[in-house]
């Protein structure tokens, strides 16, 4: 073998080595990229949750912060162990003893489920109409759906007070048309909460529904009709089943935040409304009972884990199907 050949081979080996090193570097970079969201979740989700969970195991105290024990290493490791020993599940036991909490949880889930269903009823025809609209019109329609986000959520909910109150716009309008004689009482009822939730969360329902309806091949509907299916039948046998991933995603995106909703029941639902978000707020700010409100929050999270998992599952399946 001549030297030149050996040289070239060495060069090739060196190049190979470099490319191997490059690949290893790439692997490190891709791990780092994955690390960023995990770090984010760790710092802004898991850590706060651990803190809340720890507070839920503490007792109220007239102190700063208003609970006891406060974990610290001031008294060394033995001191820390002593503090840990003081933690108890008393607050969780308390939640089961007072019917208020149970009722608030149930009422929240019922209100959230009802309003999710109503949002679906309102959102589906809108999303369907958008998906079937001429392609040139669709961006505008999407824009219109997102447009309300440009103003503050709080202001929009306040605006509903103006519309729904006994001397509000809606009642004035209906009375001017002589449809009703005396004002309808809508504000401070469950109806007002439903209106508020449906209105506020409608875009979260429409967008996933739209995206699943829009990518549906219209020739499937034609095929169904061709095979003897009426338009109505084609909707229930083809369109609706194929839009199920969107239905599930939309329902979960509305249901999950609606369960813990505080602003809408507080502003539109009046004082007698029992929802867990309000209960939590009261425990925290009115009673200054951080441990009990933390326990309420932890249980709320546990209740929501099931729908969140359904949501994740549906998303994963939808992605699977697209592949």
């Amino acid at each position, binding site marked *: 073998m001549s030297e030149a050949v050996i040289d070239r081979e060495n060069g090739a080996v060196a190049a190979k080595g470099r490319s191997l090193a490059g690949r290893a570097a790439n692997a490190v970079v891709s791990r780092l990229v994955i690390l960023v969201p995990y770090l984010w979740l760790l710092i802004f989700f898991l850590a706060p949750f651990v803190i809340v969970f720890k507070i839920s195991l503490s007792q109220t105290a007239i102190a700063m912060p208003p609970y006891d024990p406060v974990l610290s290493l001031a008294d060394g490791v033995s001191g820390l162990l002593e503090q840990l020993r003081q933690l108890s599940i008393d607050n969780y036991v308390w939640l089961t003893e007072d019917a208020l909490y149970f009722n608030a949880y149930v009422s929240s889930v019922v209100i959230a489920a009802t309003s999710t269903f109503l949002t679906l009823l309102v959102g589906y025809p809108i999303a369907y109409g958008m998906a079937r609209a001429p392609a040139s019109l669709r961006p505008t329609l999407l824009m219109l759906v997102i447009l309300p986000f440009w103003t503050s959520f709080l202001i929009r909910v306040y605006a509903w007070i103006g519309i729904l109150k006994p001397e509000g716009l809606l009642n004035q309008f209906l009375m001017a048309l002589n449809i009703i004689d005396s004002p309808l009482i809508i504000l401070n009822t469950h109806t007002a909460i439903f209106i508020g939730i449906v209105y506020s969360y409608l875009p979260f329902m429409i967008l996933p529904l739209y995206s699943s309806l829009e990518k549906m091949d219209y*020739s499937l509907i*034609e*095929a*169904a009709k*061709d*095979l*003897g299916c009426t338009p109505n039948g084609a909707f229930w*046998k083809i369109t609706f089943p194929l839009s199920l991933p969107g239905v599930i995603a939309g329902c979960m995106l509305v249901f999950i935040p609606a369960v813990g909703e505080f602003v809408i029941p507080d502003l539109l639902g009046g004082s007698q409304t029992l929802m867990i978000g309000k209960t939590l707020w009261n425990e925290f700010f009115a009673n200054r009972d951080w441990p009990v409100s933390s326990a309420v929050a932890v249980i709320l999270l546990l209740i929501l884990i099931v729908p969140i998992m359904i949501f994740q599952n549906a998303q994963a399946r939808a992605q699977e199907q697209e592949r």
Partner: protein
Amino acid sequence: MKSLGSIRRDFAPWADPGAKPYISFENVTKKFGDFIAVNDLSLNIYEREFFALLGASGCGKSTLLRMLAGFDEPTSGRILLDGQDLRGIPPYRRPVNMMFQSYALFPHMTVEGNIAFGLKQDNMPKAEIEARVKEMLRLVKLEQFAKRKPHQLSGGQRQRVALARSVAKRPKVLLLDEPLGALDKKLREETQFELMDLQQSLGLTFVVVTHDQEEAMTMADRIAILDKGEVMQVATPAEVYEAPGSRFVAGFVGNVNMFEGRVAARDAGIARITGASGAEIIVENAGDAETGNAVSFAIRPEKIKVSSRRPEGAVNAMEGEVFDLAYLGDMTVYHVRLDDGQVVKASSLNASRVTEDPLTWNDRAWISFPPDAGVVLTR
């Protein structure tokens, strides 16, 4: 016997003046806004016929099919199926089924579910549905794939499911929109013959839309060639190829050489055509061309003989130079530039393995053809 008839013996209802058409388009016009997709078109299709609508994209062939299926209504004119006017009848009440170009298989249903879908709409008893689905699966050889979802199948298998689904209801007419368009070449050729067998064994009327002339030629009893929403010619594949009715049809189907000229003299069927450069062509099939008419003489490449010397006794012969040639194995295609500048394509079958003194680039060559090898076109 010389003829340009049907390939299926004893099947030519279109030639029988007493035969009743099964599907009739009567002066059908379809407009989309200002665009005229189908223009005052009349067409008859007979029972058990394998009929092809052939044309480039945008010629209105798919619109015709969609009007037959009921997805579009004609702007004017009417469509009759077995004597019944189809106007106003929605697609789900028409006794026709369609196989879609995209197959349009329901992605959330299994192969079985897809095939059973149409039968369920008719409230057929469950046992009968099962039996029919089994029969269909056997017909398209997909028995072991019954429980699969469409996305777990190959393109060819999906095409079979779509076919099985569309024939499961035993429609009076099966409409096929580019049925083989999504398959690769080899599979397409196999499937062509399967479709023909299926049509024969089920005894259905098939109307197929295609832009692929070879596909139409292979499968159809008759072909309608469409251009800009109008029928250019309706004829058997052999007629379309050997006796095209117009320059458009001659140019659209297969390869063709066109000689422009004027009819110098005409005696019975025989005409003498003189080209601009003075070259003369003697033709037997002059059709309706009259003396003085500007005509095109159309001749297919395989009808032209290429030789290094002028063949003895040739009626039509012209001299030129081999300007290009392509050896394709089974045949060789010559491009001969005649002395007047026109380039003529001629293909010759390589019937023996070796040729003495083969022609090559820049060789002087003669092209020749008998008087009945081409047709005279006035349109």
